[in-house]
């Protein structure tokens, strides 16, 4: 089947136009001559990006093994783990926030255990990180698992035949081959963690990251203050996913050969 790029482009137009409309509007309605931060906006940016990076690290470290295992496993255990990832993925953030309050609140089952260790998860940086972690982890696992699943089984089989241990197969074969997909998964997790509002507004109102500050700016100053902070959110949070995508492109350039899905390379 011959695909003409121009046809694809024309077919893309409705979606692209739809995506562009709110942001073209934003460009039009921002008061550029009166562009100034509301009090506390700077702190919100620091909170979102700083704690967001910590969350991202935790998400990747905790999510990668699950994603890899899911891509390799079979049978009942896999089905159960799949469910365990799917359920939080489907739970609306607001409901998730309420569940976190119930579980990790000072009198909750997990919360009272942590309280015995002197840890309290009420409106502090740890609670904020936990909220982002819960918000983005299922997305990361799902995307990273797809990336691992796209690694040809034949390559892993070949590795096994040649005597590579599971760790070596993961480290030397799966990880590099899945790198482009993993980069997208990291980008997705970042976007999801930064944008997290539903969980945060219920579970960790402080420290205030950008989404909560957007809400407060609306309450205190009106929509203009929202536009300003939104621009800054884009400015400060776009570089990471852009870098991830650049990594993917470089990878594609360095490895021009298409990967075969069947047969041996």
């Amino acid at each position, binding site marked *: 089947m011959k695909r003409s790029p121009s046809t694809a482009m024309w077919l893309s137009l409705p979606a692209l136009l739809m995506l562009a409309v709110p942001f073209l509007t934003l460009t039009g309605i921002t008061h550029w001559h009166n562009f100034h931060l*509301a*009090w*506390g906006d700077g702190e919100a940016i620091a909170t979102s990006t700083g704690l967001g990076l910590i969350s991202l690290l935790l998400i990747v470290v905790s999510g990668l093994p699950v994603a890899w295992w899911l891509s390799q496993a079979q049978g009942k255990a896999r089905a159960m783990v799949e469910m365990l990832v799917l359920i939080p993925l489907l739970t609306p953030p*607001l409901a998730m*926030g*309420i569940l976190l*309050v*119930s579980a990790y*609140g*000072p*009198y*909750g089952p997990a*919360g009272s255990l942590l309280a015995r260790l002197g840890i*309290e998860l*009420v*409106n*502090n940086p740890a609670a904020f990180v936990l909220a982002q972690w819960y918000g983005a982890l299922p997305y990361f696992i799902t995307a990273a698992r797809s990336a691992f699943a796209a690694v040809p089984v034949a390559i892993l089989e070949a590795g096994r035949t040649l005597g590579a241990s599971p760790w070596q197969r993961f480290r030397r074969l799966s990880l590099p081959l899945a790198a482009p997909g993993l980069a997208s998964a990291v980008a997705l997790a970042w976007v999801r963690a930064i944008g997290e509002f539903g969980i945060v*507004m*219920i*579970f960790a*109102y*402080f*420290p205030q990251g950008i989404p*909560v500050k957007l*809400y*407060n*700016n*609306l*309450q*205190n*100053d*009106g*929509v203009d*203050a929202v536009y300003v902070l939104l621009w800054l959110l884009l400015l400060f949070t776009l570089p990471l996913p852009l870098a991830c995508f650049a990594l993917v492109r470089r990878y594609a350039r360095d490895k021009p050969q298409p990967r075969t899905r069947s047969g041996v390379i």
Partner: protein
Amino acid sequence: MALAVGATYSVSAMATDIRVTYAGSMGKVMDESLGPAFAKENNGNYQGQGQGAYGMARLLASKKITADVFVSITPGPMQILKDAGLIDSAVPVASTSMVIAYSPKGQYAQKFAAASKAGDASWLDVLATPGVKFGRTDPVNDPKGQNIVFTLLLAEKYYSKPGIAEKIMGGVQNPAQTHLEGGLLARLENGQVDAAAGYESEVISAHLPYVALPDEINLSNPAEAKKWYDTVSFAIKDSKGEEKTLHTQPLVYYAAVLKNAPNGEKAGKAFVDFMLSKAGQALYRQNGYAAPKGDALYP
């Protein structure tokens, strides 16, 4: 369907649809009582939307949202619409008072119950007990969050217990206590806080036990405003980072018809009249609200 619509139309040629925006704490009385009752009486559709009163007022003022009627708590949010030229006047439709709700299953429940019965200052001592988890909303953006600060400051004076307000609050915007409305509600209903500041109306709606407070500190009585409530104030930082001194505003719910009402100002007026009617006031009462107090704004 067509038949039903036709029948409805012939019975009442003037079916009235209505879109009401209101202060977030009014969700239950609006969406479950007043709205449906009005819709039934007028064979129309009711649409209700609630949010933090200031945020809602700003969305209306910047015309990002349109509505026939806005119901606010305290005059503050109304002023935003008045400044935007969207309303002429606002009338009181109900009132409420500050109370201290407590978790019925919490370990301090009995102490709060005893304090409630005693009717003295003992509730302050229970709140100040080390380990008691107290919840309130953010005084920076929420009128209720500001009101509990006023209540505690007034209580400190009224009962002559210097320093007790600070001891309870640990700072005006103490992160360990201040949550967003929804977050506080989740914590209170879940028993994750021992006590929380609330409006009597919402606390009754939620079937929670509470400590009722005397008029001198519950902010419900506009008659107390000038000579007593106004003796307390506190400062918070505004959006420019400058200190801004806040004063109390009476806990009265005001309703106004918007000039850009999508269903027409007549429909808006009809809804406000309904809220003030005998039937409307009965519904407010059933939901724990008190009668309107004081005068109209900008008469």
